[in-house]
Structure formats: C-alpha cells, structure tokens
C-alpha cells in the first residue's frame, strides 16, 4: 500500500495491452443485455461512424488505467477509494497496443486521509494519445 509520503512527480507502473477483435468482443460479451453496437457490429460502426472496423469500448481503457492505478496504490486502497476519469481522444481498434502511463500531480487532505491525484494518459503504438484524464485514490 502506498504511504502518504508519495512524491509529486512519482510515476505509476505503466501497463501495455494488445487489443484484438477477440478481446473487444469478449469485453462486449460481459454485458447483461445482448445488444449490437459499434464495438461488436462492423456494419453498425460503418453506418454510424463511417469506419471500416469496430472500435474497442472506451471502458477497456478505463480498465487498463485502473490496473495501473491498482498496481501503484494497492488493491486495498484503490478498490475502496479509487477513481478514474478519462476522455477518449482517438479510436482504439483491433491490432492496437495501448500503453497507460501516469504521474502524481497533486495531493490534498480530505476527511478520509490524503487524496492523491494522478495524471493519466493512454497512447497507441504510434504514440498517438488515445485517452487522457486523471485518477485518484485516498491514502
């Protein structure tokens, strides 16, 4: 578990994930409603977005960022006080490799302890930024 002496600028462990059609579809299969969408139906993605491919759900990047955060703070902390807030900037699709990085940018006292703020970024294999935002946890 992280201590309260986390330094500003500290880097969280990066996580790199290969995204495939299989992983996109498997993620979609976790839904409790069987529904066609731009993640599992190429025709629908073409009709709505003009793409020739399905897109990975942005929630996959949330999951990847959550793994980075958990590895830094520990599950005892992150699973009970953590948050991730990402804006999605570019599509992630089959064949992409997404890498999450982050560094601590600030901390402040809150009722439950010290809230640590981490600036998060996701890049693809071309070094294009696919998502950006912040994560937090209270230590």
């Amino acid at each position, binding site marked *: 578990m992280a201590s309260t002496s986390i330094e500003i600028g500290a880097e969280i462990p990066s996580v790199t994930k290969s995204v495939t059609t299989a992983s996109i579809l498997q993620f979609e299969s976790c839904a409790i409603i069987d529904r066609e969408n731009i993640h599992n139906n190429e025709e629908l993605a073409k009709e709505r977005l003009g793409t020739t491919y399905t897109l990975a759900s942005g929630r996959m990047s949330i999951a990847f960022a959550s793994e980075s955060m958990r590895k830094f703070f520990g*599950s005892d902390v992150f699973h009970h006080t953590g948050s991730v807030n990402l804006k999605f900037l570019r599509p992630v699709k089959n064949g992409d490799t997404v890498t999450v990085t982050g560094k601590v940018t600030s901390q402040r006292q809150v009722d439950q302890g010290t809230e640590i703020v981490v600036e998060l970024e996701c890049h693809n294999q071309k070094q294009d930024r696919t998502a950006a935002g912040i994560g937090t946890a209270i230590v």
Partner: protein
Amino acid sequence: MAEQPLKILDYDKLEIGEELGSYEYVLTQEMLDNYRQSIDDPDAAFPTLAVKHDGTALNMVYNDTTGGVNAGNEVEFFNPPAPGKKIFVKGRIADKYLRRDKPYLVIEATAVDEDGNLLERLKTYQMKKPDEVGKKWHPQA
C-alpha cells in the same frame, strides 16, 4: 424490471435527473473470469465496468436509434463486487449540454450489492452526433 415498451430516445426531451432503468443481476465467477480474460488482468475486480451499468439502464428505457460515441467515462470504486451476490443498479440522466454545437448526454449508474455495500458509480459522456466523430477520424471520407 418489468418489461415495458421502449421509448424512442429524443435528446431534446430528456430531462436532467430523469430516472433510467433499475435492475438486478447475480454476478457469477464466470462473468468475472470472462472480464479478466478480456482485459488480460487476472486481478481485475470490477467486471461491472464491462457490464456497462449506465448504458444498460439507458437501454432498458430508451431505444436509442442515433447511438453515440463514448467521449469519456468517470468511475468511482467503493467495494469490489463478490461473485454469487446480487447487484442492484439504478440509472439516471446526470446531465446534458451542448459543447461546440454538439449535444452531449451524461448517464450515471450506481451499483449496490445485496448486503447494501456501495460498489461503484459510473458516468458515461456520450456525444450524440456520432457521424461528426467519424468525420474527424476520417476527414477525407
């Protein structure tokens, strides 16, 4: 949740604070394993992310023929869900607004388990002109 006819989603008629679907389901070990495999993380604890609580709540009430692009997500974690336990979900429309002439819809869902433990709060920012995003990604198209 009782089956009710879906309403056609009309962005202009949506009201901030409007309740969406409420529902319950049992999280199984198979669901957790499937989720972990999909993101290649054997220690992932919130398969609820892939269940898409907020989108499910929206789709239980509305037939969204326009679709949308997920512009962002905010998730807060409070307690990991345990396989074998029921999860109760409530959804609502948290916000809607225009930015750069594009309509955004913010949906939110809160999940609690059968013991009353708060599990997760998830918000999704949907941009409701998906073809605009497609043009941005493929300017020549």
